[in-house]
């Protein structure tokens, strides 16, 4: 089973320092209000990281540096916390994050099949993002909708009682909707 954790290579903030930043277009002013809110509050690191991720979809390297600068939190301990909790992502993600549940009830109802089907459909491995940056596929621990196993969540929408076919349909419907949106524009 795979509950997705960050790859050390991609997530290594210190290593990234030596590379040319791919994300020089990050607008760091977006997190000013957040940092101000949590400036002197004890135990603030996790809500701050959650806030940053809500804004950018992940936690960019530049954001870590800014938090260090504004709040005085050490880079090493921030990295330790960000890599400990599976919620945090240090890489950009797709527009739609597909979370396939691999809790016990879903496992017993063949959740692996759903993940394998979507891996094949999207041509990505578990935890990766499609080339067109539309989808990120993740395996997650229990989403708590066990009676409808197997289950997946995309954004805040939950889809239950899936099989390979219905899972593919959900993704294809989204793809179609996106295509129509872009041709409308």
């Amino acid at each position, binding site marked *: 089973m795979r509950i997705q954790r960050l790859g050390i290579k991609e997530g290594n903030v210190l290593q990234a320092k030596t590379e040319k930043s791919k994300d020089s277009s990050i607008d760091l002013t977006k997190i000013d209000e957040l940092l101000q809110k949590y400036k002197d509050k004890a135990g603030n690191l996790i809500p701050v990281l959650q806030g940053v991720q809500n804004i950018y979809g992940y936690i960019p390297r530049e954001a870590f540096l800014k938090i260090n600068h504004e709040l005085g939190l050490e880079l090493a301990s921030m990295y330790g*916390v960000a890599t*400990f909790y599976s919620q945090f992502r240090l890489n950009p993600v797709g527009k739609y994050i597909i979370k396939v549940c691999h809790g016990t*009830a879903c496992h017993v109802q063949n959740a692996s099949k759903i993940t394998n089907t979507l891996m094949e459909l999207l041509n990505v491995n578990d935890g990766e993002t499609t080339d067109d940056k539309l989808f990120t596929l993740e395996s997650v621990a229990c989403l708590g909708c066990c009676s409808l196993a197997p289950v997946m969540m995309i954004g805040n929408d939950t889809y239950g009682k899936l099989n390979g076919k219905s899972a593919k349909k959900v993704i294809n419907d989204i793809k179609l909707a996106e295509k129509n949106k872009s041709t409308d524009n």
Partner: protein
Amino acid sequence: MKKQIIVGLGSCGIAAGASKVYNKISQIIELGNLDVELKQTSCIGMCYKEPLVEIIDDSGRYLYGDITEDKVNYLIDKHIEHEEPIKDLIVDSDLFEGSEHEYFEGQVKIALRNCGFMDPESIEEAMQRKAYQAIEKIATDNISRDEVIQYVLDSGIRGRGGGGFSTGMKWRFAKNNESDIKYIICNADEGDPGAFMDRSLLEGDPHAVIEGMIIGAYAIKAISGFIYCRAEYPLAIKRLNIALQQARDNGFLGNNILGIEGFNLDIFVKEGAGAFVCGEETALIASVEGDRGMPRKRPPFPAEQGLWKKPTNINNVETFANIPYIILNGPNSYNKYGTEKSKGTKVFALTGKIKHGGLVEVPMGISIREVIFGLGGGIQDDKKFKAVQLGGPSGGCIPEHLIDIPIDYDSVNSTGAIMGSGGMVVMDETTCMVDMAKFFLDFTQEESCGKCTFCRLGTKRMLEILTRITEGNGREGDIELLEELAVQIKDGSLCGLGQSAPNPVLTTLKYFRNEYEAHIYDKKCPAKHCKLLLTYEIIPEACTGCTVCAVKCPTNTIIGERKQVHFIEQDGCIHCGECFDKCNFDAIKVY
């Protein structure tokens, strides 16, 4: 009386399409200008019949099940416009026995008393159902802190998160530790895969949990409270924040609450960030403090030195939800249910290969058989029951010959499993017990914080052994090595995660050793689950030569001409099972 239509909008209802149902009903009411009130409620526990729609009119109450979007027009037309209830679709009613009345009859709803019966975002409806009457009683009748703790002790309630420690005793310890600053925390980090009791409570009746915390804070003299809720429950977090603000606006949180001099309290939600280990109380405290969720040595216990080193009391969601009921109705209202050492009721999440999957609240002491085959309706597709997993990844499996045992802390512990938080995953003849052990160990290995060598490395090695076994590379001595490692990991781990990680392996070895032996010595999976141990062959009499299997085979190892019987070359077969899945003629034999 104005007709009411109430749609169940808990997370599983929404997953089954209830939002669309709600929107459609809303449209119909508006277009037809119908004199009907549309409301929402949350999970009533009957998840296998979602989406659920309740209609209340002058004649009574009718709960409809399986109301998908396509049935809405028919329902409104018949029941609302023509006032003819549709008996076939009714699962429960106060006028006659609906199709699922047995599901409700076997239950005693104390913790879940309000879930599914009110709009969880309305404090007015909660108060109509007695929310905050318990804390009001404490204020009006001048019930002292010690008396409150005595009520809780007398009720016999034990921690519903899985620890099973006496709640009253825990409160007493925290109260007796002197400090100006004390904290009360609700552990809503329900991380057990297969468990969603707490999610339903938080989505369905947040005020019960908040009131329980207020009473607990009063008893131990806490000034600040936190609800540590896992981030994977966004609806629960939203409803909690709404409820907390409503509680503040109504004077149940703040200063000198309900006129009790010096009783000041506010409660905040802290979101988890995806770490199962943070369900362990010291790891939870570390997480609230902004650190990595790594457990700490006990003693000192949190009651003495918890959050920010101050006395802290931590209880589970379900434990708190029971407290207002106990205070309002007296300890006997609770301890009249249950067994000698396990009083009251417990909420279970019935999932897996069961017909009636959902949430049930039953008195302690009911047998597992009654829950699975009575309320639960038995096994899906009427297959053969094999085992039930209690307690999630910390628990163990209970085989068929033990399912008449009563469900209470001691009886369950005697089987090698634990009660846990209430997840009950039912397995049938197609479940491989070695694979289940591997699944749980994969989970605990991933979630191990890494602090203790035996947990960190021991679970890794156990997982490696189990993976080899399920892939056909099991060796002589593997079982003995698993047993040896299990004991060492239990002994060498600081917290409950490591101490209980070997339980699934130990119980499956105890009751299903033959399956392990078949995998290791015969290279066979009796449940026909472990693909690498299966042999796939084409049944000549059934094969039509449609070539679908040959086309799908990833190693091109199936040969045959169109309309001729096909053949799988075993040497090239990687046991992926694609041919079996794709064949439309049942022409593939698996053994």
